[in-house]
């Protein structure tokens, strides 16, 4: 019997410098992680694209004087009741992620919408957070496709 506890592979998190060089790092981390989770290749590209755009926005809109500013990224894999799998990704910029007059929009946001099922942006005094939910992918073959009662 598999343990019902979430496996350490279900979660990743990282703190990145608010600098364009961080983008290839976050793309590589997500590619590796989704590879471990046996995510389908096309959906890996979608998640990587969306995360890249969200982190790009955080990097681009971090105030240039904010030396040492960071972007925090965390993601979790979870199962739907029907056994389908998704990842949810949070991208958070600190207080130096300057708000834009018309909010976060433009090609980056369009791209995220095309790659993910939903996106939520929340702005607080101490920063902006984007929450991205991936498309649902099929359960892994050979595993129980969901149980009627959660053991948690």
């Amino acid at each position, binding site marked *: 019997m598999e343990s019902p506890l979430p496996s350490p592979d279900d979660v990743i998190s990282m703190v990145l410098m608010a600098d364009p060089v*961080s*983008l*290839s*790092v976050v793309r590589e981390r997500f590619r590796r992680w989704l590879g471990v989770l046996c995510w389908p290749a096309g959906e890996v590209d979608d998640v990587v694209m969306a995360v*890249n*755009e969200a982190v*790009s926005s955080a990097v681009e809109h971090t105030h240039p004087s904010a030396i040492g500013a960071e972007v925090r990224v965390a993601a979790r894999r979870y199962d739907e009741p029907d056994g389908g799998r998704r990842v949810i990704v949070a991208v958070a910029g600190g207080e130096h992620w300057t708000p834009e007059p018309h909010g976060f929009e*433009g*090609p980056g946001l369009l791209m995220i919408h095309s790659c993910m099922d939903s996106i939520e942006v929340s702005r607080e005094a101490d920063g902006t957070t984007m929450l991205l939910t991936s498309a649902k992918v099929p359960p892994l073959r050979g595993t129980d496709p969901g149980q009627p009662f959660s053991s948690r």
Partner: protein
Amino acid sequence: MNGPFGGAPSAEQLMTIERDDRDGCLILVVQGEVDLSTGGRLMEAGSAALQESAHRPVVLDLTGVDFLSSSGLGLLVALHDDGRELGAPLRVVVDPTRPVIRPIRTMGLDEVLSLFRTVDEALAA
């Protein structure tokens, strides 16, 4: 690999651009990943090629590109527009089986850019 950027590859490693000249046409062969960190270099190389091409097409070979962000798409459109202004058409070569075509289609840029499957097709057009 523990530099100030925690082992991130340098922008030079992430994307390379080689210039080639065939039948009097400038070809830029791009390999790697086009994002916020590398796009500036591609924009510079593309602009320079368009300026120098003397009204001949410039071919941008992206078949070796593994990743193209929305910022990369923005610069493709900017180069395309510059090319029209200069009378040096930009011809973009994309492998239709690789991930790069997808963001191009998502943003509807397959209707805007002049896309080709191979460098030979782009040169013959």
